[in-house]
């Protein structure tokens, strides 16, 4: 039965005689020797609004300062079953076909607010999956939009079915976008 000796030392300075590399390496003092070069920002984040409600929110997020994130609105009308026919309109940037916008993407965040986005969500998710691009799906009111949630599920590596604007912002910051 453990006795009363449960009180840890007040600092992490290892015993003077320890030879354990982990004890020496894990001190706060050793943190100062970690290589300190700027971490390159993500260069290939695309934030794609899939419907009008999502577009309004995405535009507000786009107005903030970002390193390299590109903000787009998807137009799946006329795409049929082929994602290659999707058009992506840039928010503050050029419009182009799907292929052009995804060619150097490494993360695609898909934003939806209602079930009208279901087809576009599936097509874009599928296109990213084909290209091995990491994806996240954020649905602004997933309870009211079950079809778009279901359309995102097969391909979105992460799905937030009840997201809000701050979720988009926080994820972009975390991704260094």
């Amino acid at each position, binding site marked *: *039965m*453990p*006795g*009363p*000796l*449960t*009180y*840890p030392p*007040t*600092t*992490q300075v*290892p*015993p003077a005689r*320890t030879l*354990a*590399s*982990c*004890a020496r*390496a*894990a*001190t*706060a003092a*050793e*943190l100062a020797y*970690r290589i300190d070069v700027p*971490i390159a920002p993500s260069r290939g984040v695309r934030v794609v609004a899939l419907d009008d409600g999502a577009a309004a929110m995405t535009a507000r997020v786009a107005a903030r300062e970002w390193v390299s994130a590109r903000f787009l609105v998807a137009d799946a009308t006329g795409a049929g079953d082929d994602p290659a026919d999707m058009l992506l309109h840039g928010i503050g940037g050029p419009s182009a076909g799907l292929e052009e916008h995804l060619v150097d993407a490494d*993360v695609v*965040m898909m934003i939806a607010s209602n079930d009208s986005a279901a087809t576009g969500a599936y097509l874009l998710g599928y296109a990213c999956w084909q290209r091995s691009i*990491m*994806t*996240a799906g954020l649905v602004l009111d997933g309870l009211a939009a*079950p079809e778009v*949630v*279901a359309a995102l*599920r*097969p391909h*979105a*590596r*992460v*799905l*937030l*079915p*009840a997201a809000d604007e*701050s*979720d988009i912002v*926080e*994820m972009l*910051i*975390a*991704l*260094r976008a």
Partner: protein
Amino acid sequence: MLRREINDLLTQTGPKTPMGEMFRQYWMPALLAEELAEDDCPQVRIKLLSERLVAFRDSEGRYGLIDEFCAHRGASLWFGRVEEGGIRCAYHGWKFDVTGQCVEVPSEADNSSFCANVKLRSYPLVKLGDMLWTYMGDPATIPPLPQWEFALVPPEQTYSSKRWQQSNWLQAFEGGIDSSHVTFLHSGGLKSDPLFRGAKGNEYNLHDTKPFFEVVDAEGGLFVGARRNAEEGKYYWRITPWIMPNFTMVPPRGDHPIHGHFWVPIDDENCWAYSFDYHPVRALTTDERQAMIDGHGVHSENIPGTYRPVANMDNDYLMDREAQRRGDYYSGIKGIAIQDSSLQESMGPIVDRTKERLVPADSGIIKARQKLRKAVLALRDEGVTPPGVDPAHHHVRSAAVVLDAKEAFLDSCRDAVRVVPGTPVASV
């Protein structure tokens, strides 16, 4: 990546810090009940939220958690004597009761009222299940006692342990909601650990190393669903609840007991990992309990007389490169708990999150940090009680289920992630 000021906000839990004030809204594990096993047993000194305290159990079985240092000259009461309804300082004999009230100053006259005006800071200390719980906030806003299922089932159905982790609480806690590391770091344990092995779910875990995630708000925090391929047209879901600020549960495996953790700050560079196992409908078997005592599953083998793991940073966690090569342990470290603590401690006492490179699969962690930050600021700026204080938020379970590919995990599992006393967990 987290901005430095947000990292500081979430990792500093001492008195008067915003996160420290938030922790002080909750009942928190302070000790295991076994540490104060009988009346007038030796006292225990502990540090919680950067406050040094001494805990004792008086002659009538009352628990006390008071300032470690005598009001007279500041000597530690750890050297004192627990006797006759209180704790007496070994230096000059001043005596305090479980509320911190000074009840005797030997140098004063017998009828002196001097000691009535001497009181040490004290916090309530209450036994619930295998743990002693404290509340370190404003006595005027003390919430009802917690209602965690592991602490409410009969004693034969539950087991708790603890271990000292040499890192900030946040990096320890974040491991608790990071389901994607299981397939790698703990892959050996899924095959061999007596508290994990044999479950059908382990096969799904090991065969699909690229889980998909869904992160859903809960009243008290989050549910993080990790989805892996199962049979054709089916998904295997592991659902991890997090209740703010520091309670996590691990999804179950087969009929093994279900388990989880509390991550309690000692100070900003150390925390206690409290680990529990329980079964909601049956007693733990002798073998299960012995496996827990031996440090299997989420528990650790500790140095006798302490709560420090046998494998720790001073012995390189007993790294076994041969076992790593053979695949017994993915990292070369034995035991689920130490596999986690070794890597989390390697990040340094407080990891510099400005240097992270997160990916979408880390969304559970991203969302948890966001919720913590919002709650801390809402409490500080508007006095809003944070999620998880209300005992109704404690009625959660983890779950592991196989669902049709079209099903949303939380829609299909609302009953499975809710405590219904006396019913089994949903487990594969």
